């Protein structure tokens, strides 16, 4: 059997380098740069999440936790745990049905949540809803879907162990629905 040499190896190599460089260069630069700065929450600090339609929810992170406010969502982390919060407009939708849609959306993102039959509310009573358990490949925790009829707040608290998982009741208690 006669084996023939592949032709156009130079052009193929040049093209392969180009194909790898387009996603590769930003990936290498991003890995090389220092990590994005997180803000550290102080006792007096509170932040506001705003939904697409402008509804506001006040968020209070535990002291010395690090926070990132991304507008309609926020990430809090500290003591080995992390909390993911996002606010949605209900626009007359049934909160229970929306909670089911969010649970499905979370599942596609590999965060599995299941209602556990519990109820939860903020300390001022402005938001209330159902509690659930949350599970990912690397972490476990608890979660809640809170509403006041206008907005839906999804709160997922995760930790790598039971000790590091923030208690959902403590996380949610200081939240408040702000009237604009």
């Amino acid at each position, binding site marked *: 059997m006669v084996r023939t040499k*592949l032709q*156009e190896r130079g*052009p*193929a190599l040049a093209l392969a380098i180009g194909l790898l460089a*387009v*996603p590769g260069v930003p990936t290498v630069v*991003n890995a090389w740069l220092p990590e994005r700065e997180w803000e550290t929450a102080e006792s007096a600090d509170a932040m506001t999440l705003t939904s697409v339609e402008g509804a506001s929810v006040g968020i209070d992170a535990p002291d010395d936790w690090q926070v990132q406010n991304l*507008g309609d969502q926020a990430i809090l982390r500290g003591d080995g745990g992390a909390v993911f919060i996002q606010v949605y407009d209900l626009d007359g939708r049934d909160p229970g049905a929306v909670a089911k849609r969010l649970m499905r959306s979370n599942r*596609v993102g590999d965060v599995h949540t299941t209602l556990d039959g519990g109820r939860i509310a903020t300390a001022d009573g402005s938001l209330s809803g159902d509690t659930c358990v949350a599970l990912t490949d690397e972490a476990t925790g608890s979660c809640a879907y809170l509403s006041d009829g206008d907005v839906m707040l999804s709160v997922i608290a995760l930790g790598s162990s039971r000790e590091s998982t923030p208690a959902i009741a403590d996380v949610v208690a200081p939240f408040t629905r702000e009237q604009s």
Partner: protein
Amino acid sequence: MTADLLDTPRDTSSRPAVVYRPESAVFWLYTVALLVGILHVLTHYGQAFHETFSAQLVLAPAWLALMAFLVWLMFVCDPFRSVRQYKQGLVAGSALGASTALAMALQGNTQLGEILARYLPPDVYADWSPALTAPFVEEAAKAMCAAVILVLCAPVFTRISHALLVGMFVGFGFDIAEDLTYATNEAIGSLDSDTSGAGGSLLVRALTAVPAHWAYTGLAAVGVLLLLPTFRNDVGWSRLRRVAVAVALFASASFMHFVWDGPVPNVWGKFAVNIAVFVTAVLVLLRYERRWVVDRIAATRDAPPLAEVDPAVLDSLPTGRRRRSLRTQARRTGGRSAKKAVAAQQRWALDRIASAEVCAHPG
């Protein structure tokens, strides 16, 4: 009889292989890039595609209509039928755009976005991040995929019109695959239903499909071809001019994408700017294909196969207006069947001019 059967048919021996060229390392690069791209996209979206499959099935007629419309529109940009003989190259380009280019863009956009997020305030980042990532990462990804096709199919894709259409089909594949990911995200994220989320997204993308990725990449791919040694430089452009025009075309593609993704101007302003840039560029680029067609007719009109064509038909080919005029004249004299016959002759002659059959009989 046996000898007849063993003889290679004349048509196949005279036409070079377009995509399936296993003797070339570029063919294997194409294959690996395609498989890696498909795997990457499915790793990121496989579960979501599966979850929302029934909604996409409901929307299937709309998806098919959008694809058919875009394919028709892209062929409108090929009035000299330069690529009709090599559809496999266009399909290969679409497949690469829908998989490899999308995978490159998913990774590159995310990474560049994270870099920008370090330095831009959150509100500025939210407004500007699409315009500061996609026009560079996505255009580079699609241009690289167009380069793979132009090198793989170098024996046949050598002219500006070829690159324009190759780029359009790479961009088209990217466009449809990106639309699918957006529709899937919207379906998953919809608080109402998968169908309403995906349907809303598809509607918006369909209404804004002209001009979009297919148009941007068409221009960028011409830039790529100008930098390749396989460019059939009939017009005798210097190296400097080729580089300058290529840079202008890359800049035009990214500029159109930037305008579309930026927070300003308003949507009508975006349409106006992008259509002006795209139509101007295509009209200028197609002048070279027209010149090439005119030269080929002049050089080969007395030799087969063009010698078999009515001279009036050959004379009508350089412009759409002349072609329509001849068809109208045929309809007046011979009715609709005569008009159809002239149209068929025009297509046949253009296909012969565009293919190697005419090139094999230089005048």
